[in-house]
């Protein structure tokens, strides 16, 4: 079992996302340290993909900027290994199936294990296709994170029973990005999850404001935020880490009901 469980031991979890190498790895490192120091419980590290079909325009932009800067999967592994010397917060990778497949799934999992990345989120790998990666992930103790969507309905039970690490509840239809409101009945989804597993679950997609994060964390075990952080990087560039730190603190306070 990975260290992901630990992320849910400090009350409701706040889980920020960042794309590695946007705009460069120095900025990413500073942002991750700022996240860790300000209460992030688990950090999602994006490995950029040329054609991220589950992302809205904001994270697409981050992927493009990172790749334009010459980032590669190998450089990201080296970067994480370096970061691990002082950052102890649990990490998960978020990328696309082809990035893992092309690297060779076994080699990818081995390096995750080596660098202390406990899980992988692959938004284009549904339950039916998991088998191809899950056997080798298990071998290296890496959790393959399952996603549950507003359309999952009769599939929730099946996915929950087989889930590892934590369950990523997709709050809304569509792609990642900031939304003014979330209309899905998250409570009902969580209820079915709880009936089938004791693995924690956190809600992502569309969350940017403290009130939203608070509400989602009340309904589940935590809140995940991506696009709102990438927007800070868009706006402040290399100066973003300081603002990201402040933002993470506000959001962690919100999910804790402080």
């Amino acid at each position, binding site marked *: 079992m990975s260290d992901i469980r630990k992320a849910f031991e400090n009350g409701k979890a706040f889980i920020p996302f960042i794309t590695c190498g946007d705009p460069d790895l120095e900025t990413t490192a500073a942002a991750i340290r700022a996240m860790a120091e300000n209460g992030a419980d688990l950090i999602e590290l994006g490995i950029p993909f040329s054609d991220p079909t589950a992302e809205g*325009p904001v994270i697409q932009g981050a992927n493009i900027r990172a790749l334009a800067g010459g980032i590669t999967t*190998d450089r990201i592994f080296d970067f994480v290994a370096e970061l691990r010397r002082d950052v102890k917060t649990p990490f998960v990778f978020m990328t*696309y199936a082809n*990035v893992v*497949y092309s690297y060779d799934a076994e080699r990818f999992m081995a390096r995750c294990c080596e660098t202390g990345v406990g899980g992988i989120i692959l*938004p*284009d790998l549904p339950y*039916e296709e998991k088998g191809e990666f899950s056997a080798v992930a298990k071998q290296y103790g890496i959790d393959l994170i399952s996603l549950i969507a507003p359309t999952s309905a009769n599939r929730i039970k099946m996915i929950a029973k087989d889930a590892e690490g934590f369950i990523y509840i997709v709050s809304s*239809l*569509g792609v990642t990005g900031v939304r003014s409101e979330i209309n899905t009945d998250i409570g009902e989804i969580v209820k079915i999850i709880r009936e089938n597993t004791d693995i924690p679950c956190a809600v992502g997609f569309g969350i940017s404001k403290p009130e939203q994060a608070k509400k989602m964390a009340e309904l589940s075990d935590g809140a995940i935020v991506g696009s709102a952080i990438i927007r800070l990087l868009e706006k402040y560039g290399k100066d973003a880490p300081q603002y990201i730190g402040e933002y993470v603190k506000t959001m962690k306070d919100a999910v804790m009901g402080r």
Partner: protein
Amino acid sequence: MTDSKGRFGIHGGQYIPETLMNAVIELENAYNHCKDDPEFNKELTELLNNYAGRPSLLYYAEKLTRELGGAKIYLKREDLNHTGSHKINNVLGQALLAKKMGKTRLIAETGAGQHGVATATAAALLDMECVVFMGEEDTVRQALNVYRMRLLSAKVIPVKTGTATLKDAVSEAMREWTSRIDDTHYCLGSVMGPHPFPTIVRDFQAVISREARAQILEKEGRLPDAVIACVGGGSNAIGSFYHFIPDADVKLIGCEAAGKGIDTFETAATVNTGRTGIFHGMKSYFCQDKYGQIAPVYSISAGLDYPGVGPEHAYLHDIKRAEYVPVTDDEAVDAFEFLSRTEGIIPAIESAHAVAYAMKLAPTMDKDKIIIITISGRGDKDCAAIARYRGEDIHE
């Protein structure tokens, strides 16, 4: 654990966001119900015959045969279909299926605009709303088709992301589908994407080889020696091959867009230059770098300018049942002009890739051999671009 569905050897599958899983399962169930339903098939045949103008001709290209001096060449004339290409075969099937599923809105991607026009046409006929995603680059290359789609009351959304071509149009259509599923069917235009699309599109396009097989038997009393079609995603090719697959003596040849050549980076010849990967819902061959980043591909043909290929083609390549050959821009443009000159038939630049390979192959074969080339579409849409390629600026 549930097994992966829709496999062709190791290829295919359903690599899509969880949000879409129930949508593709619903589609599969609806299709399995309709495909053997006499009522559905009667309606579809009626549309194909009395609206789209099927069966399409199998035309003996006597002058072309004489000029090339080898095998006897027949052209399967999908260019004569309503809307000017094979795309209508699939679209009528999917639109009718979507209608039966209670969907009121069709979304589609398009490269050259042929599939977009066909989808807009079916939507107009069946009273459905229609939104077409098209790479911005392609809206410039194929301005006439953009106008046709608008005339048919479809909304055309230029896609500016990535390389602003077919690949990005597919990504954007997939994104749109995840945000609106209830009333919307994604009318995918090629034998690609997640299961069940590669199978559904193949079955609807298989009408090409079903007819061609019967037609050649009637005209020649025997099967052809080779069937040649162009391959982007591969829908007209799989349609042209399908009913000949069990006939081991019939060579099946797919012509990929080599762009400026397979030894350059400006190519879209996926089977020849790509390797196995996972993208756009399927495992198949893709043009990509060593880290799995999808390559920006290039071809003069907007319809073949795609970094992947349908999973069944990948499989036919693996088992060596079909052969995939690269054809450059230059060769395709020469063939575009040659067929126009010799037969008075202006092929789509996509189809001209198949003609170009036939021009190399036919002279090497005996006169008693037979080749069928699928002319997947008509070339009117390409005239301005080809003129430009030859240094002539014409205004449509």
